[in-house]
Structure formats: structure tokens, C-alpha cells
């Protein structure tokens, strides 16, 4: 659906060159939700703007449905953009127009017929649940409602792709959840492919099928969300995931626990959580496993369980126990200092 090949983008600021993107390649499949995560300044915003050419990449190729976007003339580019909806962190609505007009105006400017505009505006107002606020002005709406208007505006063009530029970053957690729920519905019910960028891990967890992690203008890791989550390869990705501070146990406690045994982080994926691994450990290896902390992360279609376990016992016995764990269908990560 979307294919970026060796994209790079260099900005000139005075005499300095800033490389916002360095040889980025990725592919988004039809019907999926693809997320790009990274801290601010990683180049995510530039990347998403290269898809509909709000930014032109310095090098590389951009394909949307196998059409080489960079070779399109102005008119064809405008046509293509109509098939790619975009929503933004700042909503970007007309302040002087009502909710209804905000959805209808772009359609009118494109020459869509009056009846069609009315029908579409009403349809998408209903989908985002704002039919009763149609005559309100943006200043009378909450952030979440404004983002819904922006989503309706984007959907009213009946696009095949929706680009989301930090759409939930300015919203509180509850509103974020509601907007993510809406995006998920848009993806499932309308079959729209979604490409989103975010700095919130939660967004990736909740709705994305695949993810790319960006750092300093490069994609450092990409793959299915479950894989990247449970087996993060890059320091950057680990940092992101541990930033969620799941098992931030006090240093003093950690020190004490390490004196009497080993600390391991166990990650269970969906089905593997059935076997009683810890019980087996105690029975077969004569060690004392105790759970220090734990939790379950709900990914889009899979749950991931995490346990921080302290294994107490003779050093040699503990070693064999950990070895056993490694052989099971569980991800094991030893926690040191």
C-alpha cells in the first residue's frame, strides 16, 4: 500500500545541514495499522510528511499503491492526496467554521456535489458520534471532540489511507483510549489502512499490527508489535518499553534480592501461560521462586504477561532452574544490578 525506499531528507538551517531522515525503508500493507514510534526529534513527523509529499524527500522513492509519488505532476498529486486522509496533533480545524462546515468545506472545494456532501458529512458525523454537535464551533469543543471532527473530515474524502501525526498526543488518557478505539473501528469497519506516528507506547500496544522504532532519523527496528515488544533487540526499543516502568523496583530491595538468589523477568505470550512453569521450578529443582511483580499488557490481538520472579536457593540449583526456564516457551531475561 505504502512503500518507502531509502528515503533521506536533509534540511538546511543557515549553514548547517540537518539530516532528519537517513535511508529509511519500510512497507505498509493494505488493511493494517502501522505505527512508527520514537522520541521527539527522531524524524517521525518528517517521515509521515514524505508520504503525501508535504515534505519532499531529498533522496529515495515513495510508492503509494505502486505509484511513484515523486513523479506525479501537481494535479495528480492533489488527486492522490484526496485518497490519503491526514489527522494532526493540533486538529487543524477552521476556527471560523462549524463542525459541519469543517467537514463540508474541503469537499465543496473539491467540487463534490451538494447532495453527496450532505450525505457524507452526516454519515461521518454519525460515525465519530458528533451529530448533535454539528453546529458547534471548534472553540466550544473539547480536544477529543475536535479530533473526532478532524477524523470525520479526513474520512469524508473516503480515503484508502489515513495518516495520523501524533493524533492523540495532546489528549488525556481516557480521551486517547476513545480516539484509539475509533481509529481501530475505522480500520476494521471501513478497511482503511492507517499509518501513524507517536511517542506513546500505549498507542502502539493498543492498535498497531506492526511497528517501526525510530532514532536519529533511522529506523532501528521493525516488525510485528508482539515481536518487538517481547523481544526488543535495540537499546532504543528496550528503553521505550522499560520507560513504561513496569518493574521499577527500589534499588535497595533489588540489592537484597540479588544477594539471596537470581532475579528473572519472564514474558509469557498468549498460549504459553497455561503451563505451570513456576510450580515445576519449585518441584523439580528445589528452589524457591517468588513473584515480586507482574502484569499483563493487552496488545491488539494478543496479551503479554510479564513476571518479575526471584529464585532463591543454592547457586548451582538456581543456575539449572534458570537454564530450564530458557528451554521453556517463555522469554527469560535475567535482571542484574
Amino acid at each position, binding site marked *: 500500500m505504502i512503500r518507502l525506499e531509502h528515503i533521506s531528507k536533509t534540511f538546511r538551517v543557515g549553514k548547517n545541514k540537518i539530516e532528519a531522515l537517513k535511508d529509511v525503508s519500510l512497507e505498509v500493507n493494505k488493511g493494517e495499522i502501522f505505527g512508527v514510534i520514537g522520541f521527539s526529534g527522531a524524524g517521525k513527523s518528517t517521515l509521515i510528511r514524505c508520504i503525501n509529499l508535504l515534505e519532499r524527500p531529498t533522496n529515495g522513492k515513495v510508492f503509494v499503491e505502486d505509484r511513484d509519488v515523486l513523479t506525479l505532476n501537481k494535479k495528480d498529486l492533489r488527486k492522490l492526496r484526496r485518497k490519503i*486522509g491526514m489527522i494532526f496533533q493540533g486538529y487543524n480545524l477552521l*476556527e471560523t467554521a462549524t463542525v459541519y462546515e469543517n467537514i463540508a468545506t474541503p469537499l465543496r472545494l473539491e467540487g463534490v456535489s451538494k447532495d453527496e456532501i450532505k450525505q457524507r458529512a452526516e454519515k461521518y458525523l454519525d460515525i465519530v458520534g458528533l451529530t448533535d454537535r454539528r453546529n458547534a464551533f471548534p*472553540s466550544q469543543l473539547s480536544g477529543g471532540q475536535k479530533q473526532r471532527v478532524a477524523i470525520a473530515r479526513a474520512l469524508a474524502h473516503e480515503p484508502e489511507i489515513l495518516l495520523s501525526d501524533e493524533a492523540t498526543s495532546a489528549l488525556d488518557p481516557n480521551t486517547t483510549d476513545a480516539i484509539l478505539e475509533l481509529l481501530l473501528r475505522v480500520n476494521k469497519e471501513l478497511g482503511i489502512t492507517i499509518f501513524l506516528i507517536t511517542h506513546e507506547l500505549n498507542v502502539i500496544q493498543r492498535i498497531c499490527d506492526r511497528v517501526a522504532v525510530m532514532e536519529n532519523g533511522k529506523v532501528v527496528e521493525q516488525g510485528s508489535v508482539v515481536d518487538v515488544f517481547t523481544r526488543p533487540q535495540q537499546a532504543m526499543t528496550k528503553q521505550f518499553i522499560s520507560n513504561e516502568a513496569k518493574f521499577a523496583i527500589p534499588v535497595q530491595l533489588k540489592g537484597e534480592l540479588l544477594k539471596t538468589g537470581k532475579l528473572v523477568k519472564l514474558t509469557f505470550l498468549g498460549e504459553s501461560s497455561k503451563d505451570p512453569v513456576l510450580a515445576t521450578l519449585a518441584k523439580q529443582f528445589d528452589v524457591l521462586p517468588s513473584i515480586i511483580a507482574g502484569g499483563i499488557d493487552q496488545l491488539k490481538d494478543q496479551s503479554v504477561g510479564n513476571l518479575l520472579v526471584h529464585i532463591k536457593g543454592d547457586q548451582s540449583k538456581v543456575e539449572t532452574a534458570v537454564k530450564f526456564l530458557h528451554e521453556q516457551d517463555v522469554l527469560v531475561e535475567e535482571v542484574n544490578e
Partner: protein
Amino acid sequence: MANFLNEWGGSIWEAFIQTTQMTLISLAFSILIGLPLGVLLVLTRKNGQWDNPIAFTIVNSLINVIRSVPFIILLFFLLPFTKSVVGTTIGVKGVIVPLVVACAPYIARLLETAMLEVSKGVIEAYQSMGISTPKIIWHVIIREARSSIILGLTIAIIGLIGETAMAGFVGAGGLGDLAYQFGYVRFQPDVMYAVIIILIIIVQIVQSIGNLIARRLKKN
């Protein structure tokens, strides 16, 4: 009071009509020239949609140059130009040209400021929807800036009313000329006072209407 009105009422009314004429006609032409110039300034500036340093520098300097010259001097300086454009240098016709030359760049500047306030994000959103730049200018930039544009035009109108006072030098009449000719030259201060009061009332009304319209258009 009745005597005064009998004696001066006609002249004051006539002068009022002349001032109104000069102001409105010049305003119309100034908007016709100033609005495109203002739009050009917004589009050609750095990171604008038509980023073009040369065009921007030319328009920008031209506006600064014209705005540096006091109107009274511009009026005389432009005499040959006025003659070539409208065929005369006197009367209402003769004063419209210098008024427009003075006012159009001013309006361009005021509208530029108003349009720069429009959020870049909305413009970007419309670009992302495949809307062409001319449509974005009218339906997004000017639409969103309309409240500030009206306030800017209100300032321009009041400035114009002031400048028409100098129209007397080319025989165009008007309230300012009346106050000068009779009030000052012929030493009849009551005429001057009457004109001043009328001017104050006009300016108050223009500003109030401008504020009202701007508020109505703001919608937030």
C-alpha cells in the same frame, strides 16, 4: 445654532459627501491592489507556499519605500503620475490616485499581519487534502483571518479619512479642506470646531462598526 446651520449646513454636507466619496473610492481601489500584495507577501516569504526571496524582497521594499513618504509630499511628488493616469491632478479624481498609492501598501501590510496569524496547521491540513493554493488562500487563509482583516481595514479607513484632509491642496474639497479654508485661513473657528466634531463622530462610528463586524466574524 440655527443661524450657523443655515449658513454652513450646505457647505458642511457637501464637504462630508466629498470626504465620503474620496474615502470609499480610494478604499475600494486600495483593497483591490493591497489584498493581492498582502497575499503575495504571505506566499513568497520564507517557508511560504511560493517561497521566493526575490519577489518578497521587491514587494517588501517597495511597500516600505512608499510608506516612508509622508502623504502631503507623496501628493505633490505624484502629480505627473496622477496626470498620466486620470488625466487631471485636481479635484476628487486627482486626489484618488495619491490616496490609493499611499493606502494600498498600508492595507497590504495590515492584511499581511492578519493573514500571518492563521495557523500553519490548518493550511497544511488543506494541502494534505489536495486543495489547490488559490482555494486555500481564499477559503482558508482569508476566511480564517477575516476578523483581523476587518480590524485592519477599519484602521486603514480612519487613516484615509485623515489623509483626505490634505486633498484641499489639489482642490478636491472635503471636511479637512473646509476646516482649513474657513476655520483657519478665514479665521472662523466655529467652522473648524463643527468639522472636528463631525470627524470625531465619523471615526467613532467607523471604529464601532469595524469592531462589531470583526466580533461577529470571529465566532469563537
